[in-house]
């Protein structure tokens, strides 16, 4: 298998991680930890798949997937911001609920295969070796993922709204004292996170493996949460991490092709083990985490007297 093909598959494997992690990054930067990524991705995946199957329109499917992810996030937002529920527990509930609901909706869609998302085709230009093949022959969600990372990086570091978002995540009391609407900012950040997870799920069921399988995210949502820590809450590094993990996922598929006799189960463990290793490496430097992590993450905000 040639290198270009490998890079292409790596991009494909990385895109869902990248989309979900970028969304979670914004949510966490606002000071909210949403552990429901896995559940939102699953709901996004089944909604996109079902919509595409019924309407025959992938665009509608992606939109529906994103909307479904957003509405899941909306439930989460209401619970943690208004009902002041524990964020860890609510995130877990979101995941458990997402697994159940997606499986229920998905019972009617098992075994259907869809055409994968159409790829950009600029004719001869897309066929230019290496660059053309890699950069000009992807589907639109891949381009969207590139765009979103750049957008989020720009938003966080260069815009006033990004500054406000960071301020809210850093100290909700100070932000409140200056008159910023802490709960509104957080709610929007949560919704954005859900939107991106919905896109990530759509990509899984429409492009990565264009069919529906129960629990098809297989822990990718959790890996996306870990990637945000890995990237020490910076968009560029989160993207780097997503591609690293994409590469590890792809590695396991190719190893057997290279004639190595390793049971498939051990290769499948790689992304999970890599997540643990990566977490350990990043977390051991407490000072680095302290300087980069949003300080009020996971804490409920109630305006004081």
């Amino acid at each position, binding site marked *: 298998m040639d290198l270009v093909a490998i890079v292409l598959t790596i991009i494909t494997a990385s895109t869902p991680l990248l989309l979900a992690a970028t969304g979670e990054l914004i949510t966490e930067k606002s000071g909210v930890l949403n552990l429901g990524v896995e559940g939102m991705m699953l709901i996004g995946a089944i909604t996109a798949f079902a919509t595409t199957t019924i309407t025959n329109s992938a665009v509608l499917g992606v939109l529906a997937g994103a909307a479904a992810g957003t509405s899941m996030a909306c439930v989460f937002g209401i619970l943690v911001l208004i009902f002041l529920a524990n964020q860890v527990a609510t995130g877990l509930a979101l995941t458990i609920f997402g697994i159940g609901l997606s499986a229920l909706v998905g019972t009617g869609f098992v075994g259907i295969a869809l055409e994968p998302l159409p790829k950009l085709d600029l004719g001869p230009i897309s066929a230019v070796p290496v660059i053309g093949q890699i950069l000009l022959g992807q589907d639109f969600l891949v381009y969207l993922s590139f765009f979103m990372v750049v957008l989020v990086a720009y938003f966080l570091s260069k815009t006033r709204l990004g*500054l406000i978002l960071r*301020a809210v995540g*850093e100290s909700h009391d100070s*932000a409140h*004292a200056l*008159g910023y609407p802490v709960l509104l900012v957080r709610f929007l950040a949560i919704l954005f996170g859900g939107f991106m997870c919905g896109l990530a799920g759509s990509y899984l069921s429409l492009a990565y493996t264009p069919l529906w399988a129960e629990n098809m995210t297989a822990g990718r949502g959790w890996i996306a949460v870990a990637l945000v820590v890995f990237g020490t809450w910076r968009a560029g590094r989160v993207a780097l991490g997503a591609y690293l993990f994409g590469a590890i996922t792809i590695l396991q598929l190719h190893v057997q092709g290279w004639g190595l006799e390793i049971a498939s189960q051990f290769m499948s463990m790689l992304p999970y083990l890599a997540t643990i290793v990566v977490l350990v490496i990043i977390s051991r430097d407490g000072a680095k985490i302290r300087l980069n992590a949003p300080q009020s993450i996971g804490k409920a905000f109630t305006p004081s007297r």
Partner: protein
Amino acid sequence: MPALNDNQNNMKSSYDKASGEPNALLELGGISKAFPGILANDAIDLRVMPGEIHGLVGENGAGKSTLVKIIYGLLRPDQGTIKWEGDAVSIFGPSQARSLGIGMVFQHFSLFEALTVMENIALAIDEKWKTQELRSRIDEVSRNFGLSIEIDRYVHSLSVGERQRVEIVRCLLQSPKLLILDEPTSVLTPQEAESLFETLNILSKRGCAILYISHKLHEIKKICHAATILRAGRVVANCDPSKEPIKKMAELLVGSQLPEINRGRLTAHGVERIHIDNLNYTSKDPFSVKLKNISFTVRGGEILGIAGVAGNGQTELMSVLSGEVKDLDDPSIIKFNNQIVTSKGAAERRLLGAGFVPEQRQGHSAVTEMSLIENVLLTALKTCDLEKSGFIDQAKARSFAESIISNFDVRTTGVQAETGSLSGGNLQKFIVGRELLQQPSILIIEQPTWGVDVGAAIILRRALLDLAKSGAAVIIISQDLDEIFEVCNKIAVMADGMISILGDIAAVSMEEIGVLMGGQRYEH
């Protein structure tokens, strides 16, 4: 005439106009605000004239903070009217307050540690500024008022005094007509406070009114043109502080004759109880202060006061002395009652006769979600034998809690009450009581009366004096110099993680302490 006003206030203000008084900049009429279980503001009237430095005085819990939050738009009053330059207004939020011309410097700053000074300032400004323009404007303001700040530094690397300057510059950028300062000198050295007063005077001369909130009456007397005294949510007096004697104001503030603490004579009993030698500590937390070369001893019968501005290593010192932190740098030595405890934990240090009361009560020296009985176990478990082979001796813990309540006049519904339901003063009496009933020979206490009402503060200070008289060694780490002078017989000053020992409190000058608090060497 604005139609929304309620009648009474309308009449009052027209009376004022009729009598020919100039228009007030800010006029509050009958402001009330209730919280569950408490009426924080009860029909408060307040007039602030343009260019006036107006003192707002009151004890903790008198309703000062609630009132200024209403003025700054952070809270909305249940009743009452706000007039700004003669017109009735509703202030819906801080950004509207700022657009009217109201600026506020918070007591616990509203700064973001992980952001730069520039970003912090940008967050508090509602107009759009080009970065370059904003920079030159900041330069201009800080030069004009002698408030130097470094724009590109991260706030977590600034001292508390520098942070306050950032807050003030941030307000001044918008040329406010009214600047509210909430307990501004509680974080300053006496010299820094002096220069703040100068800044405030300049501002006042240029026509900016200042609402100055404090419980320190000598400051009010010194800089304010007018003062309003609050007690239990009500205005008890308006006065001209330059004419009113401090004692009179103090009695109005507390509502009764001030009891005096009779310090009596403290005599060192000669036994060396606390011995600190070359203590050095570097925390892994990048936002914390390094402790450098700290050495001192405290004997039985002595109370050593460690003065200093917040954020100079007091919290770190407390955690090192109490054994919450044990990974000190070599060659630090801590000895309690002649035993080396440097690498011993908090529980072991207690068994050697030590007691500790850190500054933060909720969630540090007490678990607010637990009952008083359960909170007794936190520190008295081993020292008072409340444990029987791994099990909790419930009966003993209960009677211990009951004796704290009766000995220290803790007002509560009972030993089963959730600790979080206690008021600040009662919670601190409970915590200090818990330590004192263990009969410590060493007590290290941080900010013993912070946020506590005067009555409780007196009980607490007396208890500390009695403990020292009985032969214990006491260390009080406090930012309140008045408190240190009232209770301690020896004083030390902490600045930038280092401690200067000054010795007998009768022999030191305020000036010397102030210079040291600012982190400079004092030349005799």
